[in-house]
C-alpha cells in the first residue's frame, strides 16, 4: 500500500513536469528536425534551422530591439519598485496605509495587458505625441514593475534596517550607507527582479502588438508575423534559443545569487 502511494506520487510528479515542460520539449525537438513543416515526423537531426535564422536579418534586429526595450523597461521597473518597496518596508517614518499602497502598486498585474496598451495609446493621443519606442518601453515597464516589486519586497522583509543605522552611526552618510550596506545586501533581489522583468518583457506579445510601429518591431512581433504567413521549424529554433537564454539566466541566478525566480 505504501509502495503504491509512492508510485502514484512519482507518476503524478512526472505527469506534472510533462504538462509544464512538454510543449517546450516538443518545440526544442522540432527545431532539430529537418522536415520543412511542423508538426511532422522526425526525420533526423540538423542544425540547419539555426543557420537559417542568420539569413533573416529582421529576426536579429528584432532581437536587438527586444533586448533594448527589455533592458530599459526593466531598469525603470526595478528602480521604481526598489524605491516603493524601500518606503513600504521601512520601520519608522514609512508611508502609512502600506497594505493599500502595496496593492495599488501591484495593480498592473490585475489589469489585462490590452487595457494597459489602450490606456497608453489614449494618453499618447491626448498629449498629441506618438507612442513609438518610448511608449513601448513605458508600457513594458508598467507591466513588469509589480513582479520586481514582489521580489524586492520579499528581499526587504529579511533586511534588518538596523544595519543602516549602524552604518550612519559609524560615519556613513545616507549615500555611503546605500552604497556600502543597503544595495549590496539587497543585490540578490534587485538582480533577480531585473532578470525576471527582462524575460517577461523580452517575450511579451500583447503589449507590443498594440504599440509597435515598423521601426520598433520586437522579436515576438516578428515571430508572430512570420507564423501568420507560414510555419516551419525555424521558428522553433528561435523559440528554443529564447528558452535556452531564459533557462541559463535562471540557473545562473540560483547558482550565484541563491535566488529562486520560480519557487
Amino acid at each position, binding site marked *: 500500500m505504501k509502495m503504491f502511494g509512492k508510485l502514484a506520487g512519482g507518476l503524478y510528479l512526472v505527469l506534472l513536469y510533462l504538462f509544464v515542460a512538454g510543449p517546450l520539449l516538443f518545440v526544442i525537438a522540432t527545431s532539430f528536425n529537418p522536415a520543412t513543416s511542423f508538426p511532422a515526423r522526425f526525420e533526423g537531426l540538423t542544425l540547419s534551422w539555426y543557420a537559417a535564422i542568420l539569413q533573416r536579418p529582421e529576426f536579429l534586429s528584432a532581437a536587438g530591439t527586444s533586448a533594448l526595450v527589455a533592458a530599459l523597461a526593466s531598469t525603470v521597473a526595478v528602480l521604481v519598485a526598489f524605491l516603493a518597496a524601500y518606503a513600504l518596508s521601512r520601520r519608522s517614518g514609512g508611508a502609512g496605509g502600506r497594505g493599500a499602497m502595496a496593492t495599488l502598486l501591484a495593480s498592473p498585474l490585475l489589469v489585462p495587458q490590452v487595457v494597459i496598451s489602450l490606456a497608453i495609446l489614449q494618453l499618447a493621443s491626448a498629449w498629441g505625441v506618438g507612442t513609438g519606442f518610448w511608449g513601448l518601453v513605458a508600457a513594458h515597464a508598467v507591466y513588469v514593475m509589480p513582479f520586481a516589486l514582489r521580489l524586492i519586497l520579499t528581499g526587504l522583509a529579511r533586511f*534588518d534596517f538596523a*544595519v543602516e543605522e549602524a552604518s550612519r552611526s559609524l560615519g556613513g552618510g545616507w549615500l555611503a550607507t546605500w552604497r556600502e550596506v543597503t544595495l549590496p545586501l539587497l543585490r540578490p533581489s534587485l538582480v533577480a527582479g531585473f532578470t525576471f522583468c527582462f524575460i517577461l518583457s523580452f517575450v511579451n506579445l500583447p503589449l507590443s502588438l498594440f504599440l509597435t510601429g515598423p521601426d520598433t518591431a520586437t522579436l515576438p512581433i516578428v515571430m508572430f508575423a512570420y507564423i501568420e504567413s507560414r510555419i516551419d521549424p525555424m521558428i522553433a529554433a528561435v523559440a528554443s534559443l529564447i528558452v535556452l537564454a531564459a533557462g541559463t539566466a535562471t540557473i545562473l541566478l540560483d547558482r550565484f545569487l541563491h535566488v529562486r525566480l520560480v519557487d
Partner: protein
Amino acid sequence: MPELVLSHVTRRFSGHTAVDDLSLTVRDGEFVCLLGPSGCGKTTTLRIIAGFEHADAGRLTLDGADITRLPPEKREIGVVFQSYALFPHKTVAENIGFGLKMRGRPKGEIAKAVEEALALVRLDGLGGRYPRALSGGQQQRVALARALAIRPRLLLMDEPLSNLDAQLREEMRVEIRRIQQSLGITAVLVTHDQSEALAMADRVAVMAKGRLQQMAAPAEIYEAPATAFVGGFIGQVNALEGRVESDGLLVLPNGTRLAGQGAGLLPGAAARAMVKQERLSLSRAEPAAMPNRFPCRVAERIYLGGSIAYRCEAAGLSLTALLPNHPLFEQFVPGDEGWIGWSAADCAFFPL
C-alpha cells in the same frame, strides 16, 4: 570633556508621548544605565541621543556643543544594537574597520586599529571570519569592537545582553564594564533588567512613562527610592496602602498601624508603604525590637535555591518574606505560626 546633557527632551509619536520633558546629565567617563519597563521611553531616548530619532522639543549637548540637529554620522557616537546589526556581507575585520573607512583613513592605520579592537574584545585572529560563522557572544563582541573602533565620544548600548544566555550574560556584564573602565569612555546602556543596571552602572536612571523617576547610584536607587514607582519597580516589595495618621505613622484600612518614613506627607493624605521582601524578618520568637511586628501564619513556601520566599498572613494582610537559604535562618512549612516584622527604616511611605 565628553559630558552628555539632555535638557527638557520630548518626543511624541502619534497618540502618545514616548519621552516627556526628560533632563539628565551623563558625566565624563560615567557609565549610566537607563532602566525601566518596556514602553517607558528608554530606547527612544537612546535613539534620540544617537540621532536616529529627532526630539520634538528640548536640547542635547555633548562636550558642550549642541548636537540636537546633528545627523548620526556627524555625532561620533558608537552604538551597539540589540540585534548587533553587523554587516553580514562584510568580514569581522571589515565590520570593525567600517567607521574608519568612512573617515577615509589609510589602509594600514585601519588594519592596526582593527587588530587593537579585536584584542580589546579578545577575538584575536577572527578578523577574516564572516559574522554568521560566529556565536552570539562573539557577534556581541564584534558589535562592541566596531562601535569602539571609531574612538567615539560616547558609547550607546541598546539591550546588548538580552540575546545571550544567562551565563554568558553575566560574563559580558563584567567584560563590558572592564572595557568601559579601561578606556574611560562615557557610556549609556539601556536595559529592562534591574540586576544588570545595578551591577554595571555608576548611576542608574529609572524611567517610567517617558519621565525620569530617579537618577542615582545603584545603592541609593535600591535603598532610597525617590518615588512609589521606583520603590515598586526595583527589588521585590510588599506594598500596603493607607492614610497618614501623623509623621511616620500610617493607618491601613483594617486599622493596623505601620511605623515608617516619608518626608512631606501631611496627616490624612493617602500613601503607600513599601518594604522589600528581604527586609522582612520571619521568626518563631517575637521580634521585640521591631516597631512593625505581627503574629502570622505561613501560607505558602516557595523554594528559590539561594533563598526561600514565605507568603504569610498577618493582621489580615498578605506579606512575602524572603529569607536566605542558610542554616542560621529558621525554616518554616505552610501552616506554621510565627512572627513577621520589619523596622521603620525599611518601611518607606510614598504619596499616592
